[in-house]
């Protein structure tokens, strides 16, 4: 197939066009000083001048809150109505670390009971990722086997060739269909700037051995190092909500006398009352116990369940943390305590 290129201007047009067709489009928007992946609306200021967005593409497939059923209450009883996933979604502007989170999320949402809200949405989704041209000290995708030019989970990888645009790499049938459907927005040539690509795997050296980290976690649950690692943590959910693989949720009802709905809403194991029992007993009363759970779940529990680490090394949690807790540093402290690298 002939080469395909996409310029910034055409990309903005394309995204706004798709959004006008009743398809949900998530793309990078410049808002109040940062770049966020958001649902594109008419007035969205789509912008590509970022090295990484503050949030991940997660909410395109796993919304902050979503209705899972609704009901009517009357003298005769309760009438419940199901919810169907009918909208398609196009996700543009995430990175390989975002796309890599999708197969990871599929595992939990598909574990025996199939959560159609995630899985059907994912089925219908077309994912376009931007290969990275920049990394910072908080990035560590390579330590987990991923790459700044990685293709896992993506349908189309856009590799920058100039300051004006990208070359498309079609990775799946969905990707090919998408390129065909919107072919008028792509072009067959684009002037190439030799300075690209600027980044490859070797620019992000591997910093720890995940196997050593897991074996330390499995044998040091009560180790005082956890308090040291989590000393600054003040138990908010900023890290959880910007993370592409964090998936904890709450289920709540919102109703009037005669009708209501049940929703699935984002929640976080780092928040103080996440595990609070009705008896008021809290298995994770202290901040470091909750932080331990976050690391344990990502680097050990998920491996025990699905043979995969629930982290893609994007570093967003470290960047978002106001208390300056850094996950790379935490994992390296563990690796060091284990005597390894």
């Amino acid at each position, binding site marked *: 197939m002939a080469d395909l290129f996409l310029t910034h201007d055409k990309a903005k047009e394309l995204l706004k066009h798709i959004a006008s067709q009743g398809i949900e489009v998530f793309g990078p928007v410049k808002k109040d000083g940062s770049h966020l992946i958001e649902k594109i609306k008419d007035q969205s200021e789509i912008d590509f001048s970022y090295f990484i967005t503050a949030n991940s593409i997660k909410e395109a497939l796993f919304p902050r809150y979503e209705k*899972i*059923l609704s*009901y009517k*209450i009357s003298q005769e*009883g*309760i009438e*419940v109505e*199901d*919810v169907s996933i009918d909208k398609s979604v196009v996700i543009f502007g995430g990175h390989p670390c975002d796309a890599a989170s999708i197969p990871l999320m599929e595992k*939990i*949402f598909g*574990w*025996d*009971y*199939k*959560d*159609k809200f995630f899985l059907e949405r994912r089925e219908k989704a077309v994912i376009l990722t931007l290969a990275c041209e920049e990394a910072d000290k908080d990035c560590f995708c390579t330590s987990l086997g991923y790459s700044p030019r990685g293709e896992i989970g993506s349908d189309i990888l856009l590799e920058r060739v100039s300051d004006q645009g990208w070359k498309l790499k079609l990775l799946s049938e969905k990707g090919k269909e998408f390129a065909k459907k919107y072919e008028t927005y792509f072009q067959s040539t684009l002037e190439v700037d030799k300075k690209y690509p600027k980044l490859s795997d070797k620019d992000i050296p591997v910093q720890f051995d995940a196997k050593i980290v897991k074996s330390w976690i499995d044998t040091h*649950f*009560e180790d005082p190092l956890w308090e040291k690692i989590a000393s600054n943590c003040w138990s908010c959910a900023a890290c959880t909500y910007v993370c592409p693989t964090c*998936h*904890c*949720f*709450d*289920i*709540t*009802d919102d*109703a009037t006398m005669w009708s*209501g709905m*049940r929703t*699935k809403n984002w*929640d976080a*194991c780092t928040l103080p009352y*996440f*595990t*609070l*029992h*009705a*008896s008021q*007993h809290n*298995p*994770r009363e202290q901040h470091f*116990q909750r932080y331990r*759970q976050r690391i*344990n*779940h990502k680097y*050990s*529990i998920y491996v*025990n*369940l699905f043979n995969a680490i629930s982290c893609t090394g994007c570093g967003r949690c470290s960047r978002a943390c106001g208390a300056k807790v850094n996950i790379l540093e935490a994992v390296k402290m563990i690796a060091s305590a284990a005597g390894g690298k």
Partner: protein
Amino acid sequence: MSDNVYMPYLMKISDIRDETPDTRTYRLEFTRPEDAEKFDFKAGQFGLYSAFGGGESTFCVASPPTRKGYIECTFRVMGRVTTQLRDMNIGDIVGFRGPYGNSFPIEEKFYGKNITFIAGGIGLAPVRCVIWNILDLRDKFKDVNIVYGARTFQDLVYKDEIKEWEDRKDVNLVKTLDPGGDKAEYGCSGWNGKMGFVPAVLKESGIKGDNGVAVVCGPPIMIKLTLPVLKELGFAEENTFTTLENKMKCGIGKCGRCNVGSFYVCKHGPVLSAAELAQLPDEY
């Protein structure tokens, strides 16, 4: 049923029994006969019960799987959902999602053995399911012992059934109250059972662990003190079973709330042996 894993069955309350001033048992029947026909579960499993408008709450299924067409749940009024549930009447609709979790390995490990049940307070609810499951298939098991106690007479649940088990010749029931729990102010008009804490009463009961399986449920402190006694009496840790309770929301292993280390109470539990429990990290 729809393909929506969060969609509950709609159940009608067909019977209400107030066990204690703050504990109630509901008998729930399926509103759709096709649901009643297809429904099956095993002893130890739990479900999420909805009070529409209030939310969902997790209780075990307290009735045995040997009885078809209905399920029972016993709950204590503690918060938002249970308060709304308590304010319901016969004929009202309660949602039910389940059965979830694993079950007691009755076929694999209980057949042909002496079964000893130990429970405290409302902890009798998950155990009651197994008790009736076993009594409904009585000749598959050897001795059946039940040691049950509560803080006061008022706190005893399933009072009628305790009498039934007491009267049965093929069951050895030992009931007890905490010291002072037999006062008239607790509704007690004469107590012919033991006085003392469950672990101590178990120790003096003469029950032995030979060829035995134990099922323990109750407040965490009671379980903590009972497990060593069972060991002393000769019950192997692999043959001592209990249930874990943790805060739940989805019940199907996705919301990330109930795990104790890698043990997801809703998927790998709630039933586990004392040997397995000893391996778990202290976060439950």
